[in-house]
């Protein structure tokens, strides 16, 4: 078999159609994040074709326990993709025969994109929950000595820190909550560096919202500036040790 035949074989296997009842189902090369192929459904209508994802983007989110989040993000994804969404399916109505390839591609991409956006939204919700955990740990460890989003004077200017621990002499320690993003790490590094430049610098701790998702190189940069780099999920007793 020559290369052209192999390539044709691959191309045919990536996309093909099946008929079930009055509907056609087209397997596309697009896949959801979990590896499942996106299949687009065609239904003949009075004025052309009705093209949809058959509600499978929503079903995938349902198997993740994330249908509620999916429905919240789907409208925006549909609008950006130029298609419609009806709380369950992405669809395009009144599609002419010669418009079907573009319609199928649009629906496949939007359905997969909506699941990706759902995953992203869930991960951002995890960061919010991490912040709540961080604050509750500080309260448990330091009681009313812990202040939140409080200003601390550095060498060059004042900075707001996510957690500030006070004692009789003033600021004993600063804790900065750091999301797993380049900009968050850069900002934390700058703040901690400026405060650690003080003559009587407080202890400085970088508390990572997601230790594993923060790149090792970025963790190392924080380690160069902060006294300790911790995960927000550690026990309250370990917060006291870190300070």
């Amino acid at each position, binding site marked *: 078999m020559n290369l052209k035949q192999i390539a044709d074989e691959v191309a045919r296997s990536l996309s093909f159609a099946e008929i079930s009842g*009055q509907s056609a189902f087209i*397997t596309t090369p697009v896949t959801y994040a*979990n*590896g499942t192929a996106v299949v687009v459904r065609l239904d003949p209508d009075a004025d052309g074709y009705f093209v949809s994802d058959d509600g499978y983007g929503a079903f995938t989110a349902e*198997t993740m326990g*994330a249908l509620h989040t999916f429905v919240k993000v789907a409208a925006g994804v549909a609008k950006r993709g130029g298609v419609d969404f009806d709380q369950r399916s992405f669809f395009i109505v009144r599609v002419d025969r010669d418009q079907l390839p573009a319609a199928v591609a649009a629906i496949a991409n939007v359905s997969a994109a909506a699941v990706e956006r759902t995953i992203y939204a*869930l991960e951002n919700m995890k960061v919010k929950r991490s912040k709540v955990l961080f604050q509750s740990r500080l309260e448990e460890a330091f009681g009313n000595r812990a202040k939140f989003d409080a200003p601390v004077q550095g060498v060059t200017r004042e900075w707001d820190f996510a957690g500030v621990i006070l004692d009789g002499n003033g600021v004993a320690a600063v804790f900065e909550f750091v999301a797993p993003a380049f900009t968050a790490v850069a900002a934390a590094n700058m703040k901690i560096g400026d405060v650690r430049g003080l003559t009587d610098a407080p202890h400085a701790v970088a508390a990572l919202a997601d230790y594993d998702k923060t790149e090792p190189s970025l963790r190392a940069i924080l380690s160069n500036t902060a006294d300790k780099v911790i995960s*927000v999920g550690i026990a309250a007793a370990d917060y006291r040790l870190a300070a």
Partner: protein
Amino acid sequence: MDPEFEAQIIAHLRVVCAASKAFDSPVRWIAVKDSRGNERLYLRGALRLDGQLGGGVSIFISTPRLEWESDVYGQLEVRRPGIRGHLRLLPIEWRPRRRHNNPASAPMGLRLLTLGDRWHDFEDNAPFGINGFNQTQTAIARELPRAISSFSDYLNLASEIWKLPDLRTIEQPPWSKTLF
């Protein structure tokens, strides 16, 4: 995710896989219709592990109403504090309309396989952490351990994989044959 927390979750999933399971209460099929009148059938219920309710485990099986002995999807769902949504465990798909492509990172013999009938073995996926179980990355699937040709065959196989003998007692989905 904190590595220690992730390890605890994986350990819990392993316990769930190994436990003998039973329905906590009778289950039945329900139908959900979309705006075009297409119906999907669902069967859901909490499960006891080794005779005790707890551990956040339930069963989920779904199939379109207008199919007949095809496109059946089933999974165990595990909910845990600190995990948004739920984790998918041991999914089993029979005559699915949608294929699955294994990732290039899968072990030899499973790498880049395209599968129709399939299931996800826990031990194939556990070394890769939680992301295969929360479906944020492509999990590793295998062919079914034996060919099945009826819904009762599917229930028998699923009852073995999920260690859920009660599954053999559930009724066939109320499918409606499509009329041409």
